[in-house]
Structure formats: C-alpha cells, structure tokens
C-alpha cells in the first residue's frame, strides 16, 4: 500500500513540452556522436571493456560496422526528432548510440566519460516513446500532441536518479581509491599544471594557493559524493544541481577540452527547476483549450480499446 502511494506520482503525466525538448537536446548529442570520427587505435586487446566485448574481433575492430552505425544513428535520430517511424526510430537511435560509444571504447587505450549520461538518458527517453508510441502517434495525427499529457513523471524521476547515481559514483570511487584525503589540493594542482588552461581564473587561483586548491577539490568530492540527495525533492535537487554546475564550470573552465559539456547541460536541464517552469507554462497554454486525454484521441481515431 505504502509502495503504491510512493510510486503513484511516477505514473502521472504532464504536457510533453519538457520531455520533447529533452529529446531534441539528446538527439543533437546523438548527432554530435555520429559526427565524431572513429578512433581506432592499434594494440593488444584488453580484458572486457564493454558489454559487447564478447563480439568477434572482426566486428569490434571493423570500421565498416562503425561507419554503418553512424549513418543509421543519423537516420534514426532525425526520424525520431520528426516523430516518424516511432515504432523503431527511438529504439534504433538508442541502440546505435550505445553501440557506437561501446565500439569506440573497445578500440581506444584511454577512456572517457562524456557520453555515459547522454547514453542512459537517450535509452530512457527512447523507452518513453516506445511505451507511449500508440498515444503519441495518434496525438500527432490528430494534431493534439502539445495539448495532451503524454510525458510520464517516471521519465523525469529516472533521469534525476541516474544523474544522482552517476555523480555519486565519482565521489565514492575517489574515496575508495584514495581515501578521504583525496582532496589534498596537491593532486589538483598537478593536473592543472600539466593539462589545465593556465589563463583560466580557476587554474590561476588553484595554482597560486594550495589551500584554495584543497577547498575546490574537497568541495568537488563532497558535491559528487552527496549528489544522490537530488533524489529527495525539489530543493535538494536544485542545490545539488547548483553544486554540480559549479563543479562543471570549474572543470570546463580549467580543462577546456575535456568534453563534459553534455553532462553539464543535462545536469542543468534536470536538476535546476526547468521542468516545473516549462510544464507550468505548458499548463497555462493548454488551460484555455480542451483537455483531451490520450484515450480520447485513440477512441476518436479508433486506434485502441
């Protein structure tokens, strides 16, 4: 009973403005990945790097497979953006995105974590479109997509859940590897000295004084470790969002070519109060018009029931 109450809000639906905007942003990320050329390095195969490591070597290292997936990703992503072929375009976009990044990781000697969040959120939004495809298609055909509550809350909550766990892992891994002393300031100074953009105000500040470097580094550790608190309501979500954005601003302002821009955008989108703002505006827009449920459209068009 309690579980039912807890989960009830998850199945409520709101107008699709925020969800659709997120999908378009994620699709633009997918196009960025498709544009990114292959990075096939040579060397001995390492142990399992991804969930597709069991694929035959001919597939893992094939440039043809990689290029074909890039093309398919672009086609599927554009189809999804235009809400065409919804029976297969969201799922194909998600699968192609996952495979392309997995193949990339299978063929490099240095990892990167710039597309993990985007990948999981594309998967999540593809699942939303897949599960609601009948209603979405019917609404599109009836021209009522923007007037219907088609965006289930669980999509938003699961995205917040993933952002929380992704960043919390970063904190936990630092503590488990180096202990609570990780934020000693010296290691941050060394990384900045070696790879940082020296003209950056963050870099200059951190390089000039170890105490400041220590505060920045420890602050990052605290924010990351406790980022799971974003699961517990709007205010914790906003506070964690601000903390993480501060962290990303520092990272991207210092290590300018690290490519965490995608993560930063998604953190801002989901953890800052954009969703209630956008949904509120959608609500105001629709109040004057007729509130139609997806079922009413389906019944009208004779699609279901």
């Amino acid at each position: 009973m309690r579980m039912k109450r807890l989960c009830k809000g998850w199945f409520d639906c709101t107008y699709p403005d925020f969800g659709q905007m997120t999908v378009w942003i994620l699709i633009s990320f997918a196009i960025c990945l498709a544009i990114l050329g292959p990075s096939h390095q040579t060397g001995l195969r390492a142990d399992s790097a991804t969930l597709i490591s069991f694929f035959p070597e001919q597939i893992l290292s094939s440039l043809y497979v990689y290029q074909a997936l890039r093309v398919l990703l672009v086609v599927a992503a554009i189809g999804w953006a235009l809400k065409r072929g919804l029976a297969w375009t969201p799922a194909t976009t998600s699968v192609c995105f996952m495979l392309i990044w997995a193949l990339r990781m299978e063929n490099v000697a240095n990892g990167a974590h710039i597309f993990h969040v985007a990948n999981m959120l594309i998967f999540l939004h593809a699942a939303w479109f897949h599960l609601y495809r009948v209603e979405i298609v019917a609404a599109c055909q009836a021209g009522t997509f923007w007037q219907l509550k088609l965006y289930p809350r669980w999509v938003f909550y699961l995205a917040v859940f993933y952002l929380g766990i992704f960043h919390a892992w970063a904190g936990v891994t630092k503590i488990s590897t180096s202990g609570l002393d990780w934020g000693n300031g010296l290691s941050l100074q060394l990384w900045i000295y070696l790879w940082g953009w020296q003209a950056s105000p963050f870099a200059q500040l951190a390089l000039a004084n170890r105490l400041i470097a220590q505060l920045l580094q420890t602050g990052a550790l605290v924010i990351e470790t406790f980022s799971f608190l974003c699961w517990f309501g709007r205010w914790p979500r906003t506070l964690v969002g601000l903390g993480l954005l501060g962290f990303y601003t520092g990272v991207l302002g210092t290590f300018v070519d690290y490519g965490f821009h995608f993560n930063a955008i998604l953190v801002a989108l989901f953890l800052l109060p954009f969703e209630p703002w956008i949904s509120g505006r959608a609500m105001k827009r629709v109040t004057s018009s007729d509130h139609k449920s997806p079922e009413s459209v389906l019944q009208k068009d004779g699609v279901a029931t």
Partner: protein
Amino acid sequence: MPDAGTSPMNSRMRRQETVFIVGFIVINLIGPIVLGERFPFTISPMFCDEPACYCEYFVTDANGREIDLASLKLQRVYDGNPVGLGVGIQPAETLDRFGQVPTEQELSRHLLEQIDVWPDTPYLRIEMTVVGALDENRVGPVERLALKVERP
C-alpha cells in the same frame, strides 16, 4: 490522463512501465557494483587517484635531435583515468608511472634496453624533470636528472 487501470490497455501499459522503472533502477544500482567500469556502466573513476608528483622526459641522440618518447617506451599513457580501465586496447608499455619517480638505475637500465631502436646513435641523453610540490602553496619542477646512456 485518467487513472491507469481503467482499461485493459492502461493496465498492460502500467505493468510495462513498472517493469521498466524497476529494471532501470536495479540495473543501474547493481551494474557498476557487479561489472565495474564496463560501458554502459561506469564507476566514474576519472581523477580518483592522488598523485604527489609526475615526471617529464626529454631525450636526444648524439646529434642533439629530439627522440620520440614512445619509441623508447617513456611516453605518458595516463590521462586522468586509471590506466587501462574500461578500454579495449591495452595501453602501450612504458616506464612512466604517473605519481612515481624511477630511480637513476631503473632509467639507465630501461634506456639500455631500448637504445637498439635507434641504431645510428652511439648514445642517448635524457633529462628527467620531476614536477611536484615546490613549497606549501605551489607546484613546479622540483628535481632534474640528466643522464648519458652509451651503447654497450
């Protein structure tokens, strides 16, 4: 949207959604614990270490020409991520370990093992610079070592 469960379609859809939600949460909670750094799962390990120093190398041949560090297995393979974790290609073999300083003997021995890659030079000169804490506030070059390694 009317309460789910009012029609067979809704109740089926609610079931599918519930399965997806539970699956998504469970997989993302357990995946990184069980599988570790294996895409699409990640333990976000970047910069999880705590180096206190690192080394820069500069090698020249007898004519003073700079020699590519990778050819002597002295290149840096560390990029902030734990070396070799979550990648399909093993990092190239190298003496360089971010956060560690090789001894003079280790460095000489290593260069003697690699000198045959450059058969035209009778010797190699190497300068190793250790970057670490200069004082309580700043980092920079703290130690320099110059070596001449002759072909035996």
